[in-house]
């Protein structure tokens, strides 16, 4: 009797509990997931799916038109042992990252400090300085850049005032990459806005106290502004480094997709594009993409590991 009543009691409790559990999930979480659904479909279908597919393809000889055959690690082996263009493109991208990122950040910080002095018409200036970032990656600007740095372009017109006869910057193997670095630095808008927000967070009384103690502008910058801004510098450095590694459009437009003259603007991404869509070696291009991902990952991890030695969080 007792046993029976227990047996019959337990399912009754489950029955009572389970609808309310499901109802709770349905009422509390389902709407959230429902709202997330478009993003989830996009994330799994258009991001995660292709990423995993490209990992598989990187071990094949896929050529777009015929079905892929497994070739093991051949693509990776060829890349590191028998592909001078891989190293050439790696060098171009490294030079670009190493020079464009610090220059851009320095420039962005300088302009942000200038704008932080509470001048009139600040919103207008802020918008104007931000404009290049909106335009910079566009086709029109890349074409404009070709004109500005051409042999009879604006830059040489300016130099000729001082009697200097400049070369055709854009088509000269020594200078072409630098025109692209300048283009990248010019797009300083988004780190500038973030720096500006960071500068606003620094309490004014610190500067007042420092100037009472007789600290000059430079000392204030080094001892107050820079340390308190390091979290923002850190954030900007990581974002801009990743952006620089991924840079593609300017080089593609300015060199007509060739990376010329003499592969001097053959960015890693441009080489990847050529292999994939110029020569239809999707397998090899996928392998290139994974090496780039790993490289960006290593750079970012390195930044995070060293951050505890130079980034000061105010806590």
């Amino acid at each position, binding site marked *: 009797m007792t046993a029976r009543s227990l047996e019959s009691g337990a399912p009754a409790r489950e029955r009572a509990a389970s609808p309310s559990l499901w109802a709770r999930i349905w009422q509390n979480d389902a709407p959230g997931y429902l709202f997330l659904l478009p993003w989830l479909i996009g994330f799994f279908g258009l991001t995660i799916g292709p990423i995993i597919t490209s990992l598989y393809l990187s071990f094949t000889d896929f050529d*777009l*038109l*015929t079905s892929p055959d497994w070739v093991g690690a051949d693509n990776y082996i060829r890349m590191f042992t028998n592909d001078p*263009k891989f190293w050439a493109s790696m060098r171009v991208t490294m030079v670009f990252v190493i020079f464009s990122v610090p220059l851009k950040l320095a420039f962005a910080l300088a302009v942000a400090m200038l704008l932080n002095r509470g001048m009139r018409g600040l919103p207008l200036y802020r918008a104007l300085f931000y404009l290049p970032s909106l335009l910079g*990656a*566009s*086709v029109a600007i890349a074409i404009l850049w*070709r004109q500005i740095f*051409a*042999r009879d372009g604006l830059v040489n017109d300016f130099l000729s005032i001082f009697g200097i006869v400049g*070369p*055709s910057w*854009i*088509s*000269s*193997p020594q200078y072409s990459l630098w025109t692209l670095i300048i283009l990248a630095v010019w797009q300083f808008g988004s780190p500038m806005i973030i720096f500006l927000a960071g500068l606003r967070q620094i309490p004014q009384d610190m500067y007042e106290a420092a100037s009472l103690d007789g600290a000059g502008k430079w000392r204030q910058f080094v001892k107050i502004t820079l340390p308190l801004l390091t979290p923002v510098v850190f954030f900007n450095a990581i974002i801009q480094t990743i952006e620089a590694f991924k840079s*593609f*459009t300017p080089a*593609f437009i300015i*060199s*007509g*997709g*060739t990376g*010329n*003259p*003499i*592969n001097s603007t053959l960015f890693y991404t441009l080489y990847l*594009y*050529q292999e*994939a*869509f*110029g*020569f*239809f070696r999707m397998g090899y291009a996928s392998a290139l993409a994974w090496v780039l991902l790993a490289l960006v990952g290593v750079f970012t991890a390195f930044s995070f590991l060293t951050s505890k030695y130079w980034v000061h969080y105010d806590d």
Partner: protein
Amino acid sequence: MTNRIDRRQFLMGSSALVAAGAAGVMPSWAQDANLRLTFWGGQARADRTYGVTDLYTAAKGGSIEGEFLAWNDYWPKLATQTAGGNAPDVIQMDYRYIVEYAKRNAIAPLDEFIGGVLKLDDFDADQLEGGKVDGKLYGISLGANSVATLINTAAFEEAGIEPPTNAWTYAELREKGEAFAAANIRNGMKMMSDGSGVEPMLDNWLRQKGLALYTADGKLGFGADEMVEWFTLWNGLRDAGVIVLMEDQALDTGPLESSMLVTGKSALMPSNSNQLVGFQALVQDKLDMCGYPRLEAGSGGGHYRKPSMFFSIAGSSASKEAATEFVSYFVNDVEAGKILGVERGIPCSATVRDAVAPTLDEANQIALNFVANLGDLLGALPPPPPAAAGEIDISLLRTLSQEVGFGARSAEDAGAYFVTEATAILDRAS
């Protein structure tokens, strides 16, 4: 009606990937009367092509959605569309790619339609032959053309020098070029653009020596010695001020607009006979054309009449018959022929050719006469190039010509390097 997407709109999509993605989500409504058409070329070609599609759809109903891109952007997009099973019904095809696409069934054989919707009664036999792969017809030639040197006649007049003719030689190129440079017209305009990285020009020069760019079994048809001689020849011309500096030549990234002829840096430029029309639309001065230079007086056989391009039908097309009917109209209809002129080459249908000839404007006339009167310049049609030819052209010949032109590599070094690397690329591809 005709819908069209031009190159600028395509570029706004900022990359072929994005555009291909966008194309991928468009429903492919391939019913009988609704066709998609894709081709490479400039605005002049697009205007003519859309003139014909408008004429066709006005008569037959339905719609043809056209899209055109520059050569460099065209092939990546077509390959992506083909891989996605979303290739346009009618595809402009090149001699270089037709074998590759045919062997992978990316384009369809059209033999079953011959005599039906595809009328080829008075079509040139050699042009028909050029569109065959393994005995089956995969491409309908849209016109015959030949390589040609484009001439800016006004510039020659200003310099007070006789423009070259079909009889001219490389020695004459140098002689005239030095005189041209001495005349110093238009802010230091040079007589010719740099041809050291122009594959058809190298091909033409080799053929006159009895050699070939590629053999019938897809091997390299020449050795390091020829390549060294080739680069040395152009180094000499560059040093003598006959051709443009490499820093100018490097600005030519493919589109007609960036070429030395259009930017006014040179008065001569190696090109193709049918392209005179496209170039003339962009240049104020009157253009003319002659053959590529001869090795020496009397040597010939470097040129050949080739199908300038084909229309092929996608293997995945759901309306192959309707698409073929349109292609047949495109090459056979007299009114269509009058709109098209010889911008894609000399019409292959005898009826169209005869009807069109008297109606042509001057630029079209020049192209027609040039191809009709090649004489002893004409040699045999070479076999289709191997699949890796495009890569050898883009990543080897053009880069090396720049390295030599900028003085970063010697002609001797470049010659040996070319042969080693080209052989490696050919081996890897086979």
